[in-house]
């Protein structure tokens, strides 16, 4: 009992925020044919992640779904092995594969225990260089994805997420395309072959490796990926990245009997290289970027309208945008919209109080440390500057800004980018009274 009397439970123990955050930077290595390898040798476990990246994202496709189908089909059969054999060969050693397509790039990633690297690399090589796109596998893939598409069409959240970029950029914009059901029928084997030939080439490739990366691994990457000539550069079409936002600011897609409605709100912004990129991200955090954000505090924790609401900033290579997303009870949808606009206005008209700003700065510092924790996280941090042709000075600037940004600057940011009349609004579901 005496300890309890003496113990001060009212006062927070002193904070010791470290002034310096150590960042382990990726190292460079070049394969004999010139393919760049970036690697992070870190961590305590005998694990390796190798991501092979191509500029083969959805923005390069002439026919919808071709970029994604090409990427997903790489593991569905090669000139030497069937889909089942590829899976068996990887599974047997506990290695696993991840294929992924974004708007700007596509990648094939393998995760393996260091001791099984020799088993994993030949497969990775084979499916990147010699996919056969078997007709029957392609049909199955398209058929099953069509069914998933139909399920997704019933989810208000997914419908909203799919339609929102089209509102911001326009449907014909490389970032604005909205997948339609019939497009699955337009994907042909020869399109995938042509897309693969054009974009999955040595001259259009980079590799990011993380985990227990040593000289042996780097040499082996040379054996498997360092031989083809890189002189053959992919020829890219010139895209027009000028956004053609919808004429209508307020958009509504009704869904009968929806108990909840999905809300999306946002606007086109700038590139990650823009001087406002860092301050705006801090502003976004205050608004809806963490659990204690204003949107969460107001719309979930004060009103109980939703299970969750957040806002985020998306940076693509040729554009950036801001968006708020939530699913709210249909009967309170209008009330939630009113509150969202109130929060935007509040950021434009009132300076962020000092204690809130300090809290967000501290939170973001901790978050930054978390995002740099472990070899795979470090590789991701590298990828996110490399994709935008930036270097580690971006992170230095970011950490600096966490120390120096003022309420005045944040209010300027809000007035510049968060005015109510600049927002595009999309509701999917029912709006209530």
């Amino acid at each position, binding site marked *: 009992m005496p300890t309890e009397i003496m*113990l001060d*439970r009212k006062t927070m123990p002193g904070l010791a925020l*470290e002034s310096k955050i150590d960042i382990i930077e990726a190292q460079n290595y070049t394969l004999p044919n010139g393919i760049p390898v970036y690697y992070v040798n870190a961590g*305590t*476990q005998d694990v390796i992640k190798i991501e092979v990246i191509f500029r083969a994202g959805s923005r390069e496709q002439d026919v919808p779904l071709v970029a994604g189908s090409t990427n997903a089909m790489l593991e569905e059969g090669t000139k030497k092995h069937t889909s*089942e054999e590829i899976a068996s060969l990887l599974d047997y050693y506990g290695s696993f594969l991840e294929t992924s397509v974004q708007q700007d790039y596509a990648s094939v990633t393998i995760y393996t225990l260091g001791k099984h690297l020799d088993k994993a690399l030949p497969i990775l090589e084979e499916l990147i260089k010699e996919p056969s796109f078997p007709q029957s596998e392609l049909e*199955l893939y398209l058929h099953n994805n069509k069914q998933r598409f139909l*399920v997704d069409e019933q989810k208000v959240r997914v419908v909203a997420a799919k339609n929102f970029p089209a509102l911001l950029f326009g449907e014909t914009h490389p970032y604005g395309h909205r997948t339609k059901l019939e497009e699955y029928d337009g994907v042909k084997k020869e399109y995938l072959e042509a897309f693969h030939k054009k974009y999955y080439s040595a001259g259009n490739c980079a590799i990011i490796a993380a985990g227990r990366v040593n000289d042996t691994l780097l040499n082996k990457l040379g054996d498997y990926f360092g031989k083809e000539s890189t002189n053959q550069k992919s020829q890219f079409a010139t895209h027009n990245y000028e956004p053609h936002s919808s004429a209508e600011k307020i958009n509504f897609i009704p869904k009968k009997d929806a108990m909840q409605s999905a809300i999306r709100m946002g606007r086109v912004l700038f590139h990650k290289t823009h001087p406002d990129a860092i301050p705006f991200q801090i502003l976004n955090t205050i608004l809806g970027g963490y659990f204690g954000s204003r949107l969460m505090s107001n719309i979930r924790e004060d009103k109980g309208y939703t*299970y969750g609401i957040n806002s985020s900033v998306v940076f693509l290579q040729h554009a950036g945008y801001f968006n708020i997303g939530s699913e709210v009870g249909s009967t309170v949808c209008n009330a939630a919209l009113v509150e969202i606009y109130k929060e935007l206005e509040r950021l434009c008209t009132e300076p962020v109080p000092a204690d809130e700003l300090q809290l967000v700065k501290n939170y973001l510092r*901790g978050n930054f440390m978390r995002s740099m924790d472990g070899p795979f996280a470090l590789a991701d941090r590298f990828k996110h500057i490399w994709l935008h042709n930036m270097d580690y000075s971006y992170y230095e600037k970011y950490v600096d800004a966490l120390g120096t940004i003022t309420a005045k600057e944040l209010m300027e940011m809000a007035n510049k980018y968060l005015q109510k009349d600049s927002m595009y609004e999309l509701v999917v579901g029912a709006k209530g009274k």
Partner: protein
Amino acid sequence: MIDFERFTLANGLKVIVHRDTSTPMACVNILYDVGARDEDPERTGFAHLFEHLMFGGSVNIPDYDNVLQQAGGENNAFTSNDITNYYLTLPAVNLEVAFWLESDRMLSLAFSDKSLEVQRNVVIEEFKQSYLNQPYGDIWLEIPKLAYKVHPYLWPTIGKNIDHIKYAVMDDVKAFFKKFYCPNNAILAVSGNITVEEVKRLCEKWFAPIPMGNPPKRNLPVEPTQTEPRKLELERDVPASAIYKLYHMGKRVDKNFYTMELVADILTDGNASRLYVELVKNQKLFSEINAFTYESLDPGIFIVTGKLLDGITLEQADAAIQKEIAKLSVAEVQKDELEKAKNKVEAQHVFAEISILNKAMNLAIFELLGGAENANKEVEKFFSVSEKDILNDASSLLNEPNCSTLYYRSKPKV
């Protein structure tokens, strides 16, 4: 391999410490030995609602999240049928803030009416978002009561229905706290760039003064052995019909848990798995198929589920699954096939141990299951499963009398 040290405070709080100096962060995980299975059948969903209320302010600290965020931390929590688990990560230099926060809410909550009112609404929206407002969502409300008739696993963690949450009152909240949220009903696991000495000092300072409680001895009804096939049919407005087959199996610490996990892998994990190759690729009956165990502390269920392709009947799909599964009871699986499933498990364990959060969570759960050291024996246990074990467990468990089948029929288009 996760090295750890363990000690118990005089008030019964069990503490486990794992040091990992490769990170600047620390993780604090507190597991309370209470889940949906401990609820009153007339007040279901309470353990989970309570988890939300644990963030509504404690006796000396009005805003948990605010403080943690100031310390650069981030947290979350989950409730299952078995446990309620709270975890946070923060820069290791601020470890004491985590102790201050967690010990205060173990000492007592603020019991604010506003928080109860709001979190009731939040949980109701969560109920809608996860179970009611999306295709196939209500399956997880139906499955438990099909497989269980008396054991409290018969209701889902979110609760039997929204009304149970709507009518929760403050007295329930207080009683629940008093009953379950005490040091001798909790396990604290701390991992990351910390020392055992520091954790001991902080435990003595912040947790030791909290009085011991008197958690009830758990005495749950035992689910009787199912002896006849069960069937349920539902018709819903979904694009494709789905089938769920639920087979009773053992609890998390039973030997057959390990067998059935490997069986799940063999059946549906990856493009070379049996059901995927046979039923998705060759016979083209399903667009997707999955098998998994429900990792539960009391006897659980093994689930096989698939979404049917157009033109395939549920009866056809059911028969095809049964036929494939029956093969496990007739002949031993291939040596390679089993080896492969085991190697995968091993790799997953190594990958999972990259994260200090996974490590802390695992240590806490295994401590509850009988000893944190067992976290390091998992791979070995999987490797000890033989072809014969699979044959035996498959024949005793994967048969129709032990199975409940849900036909989730897509409403015909008008």
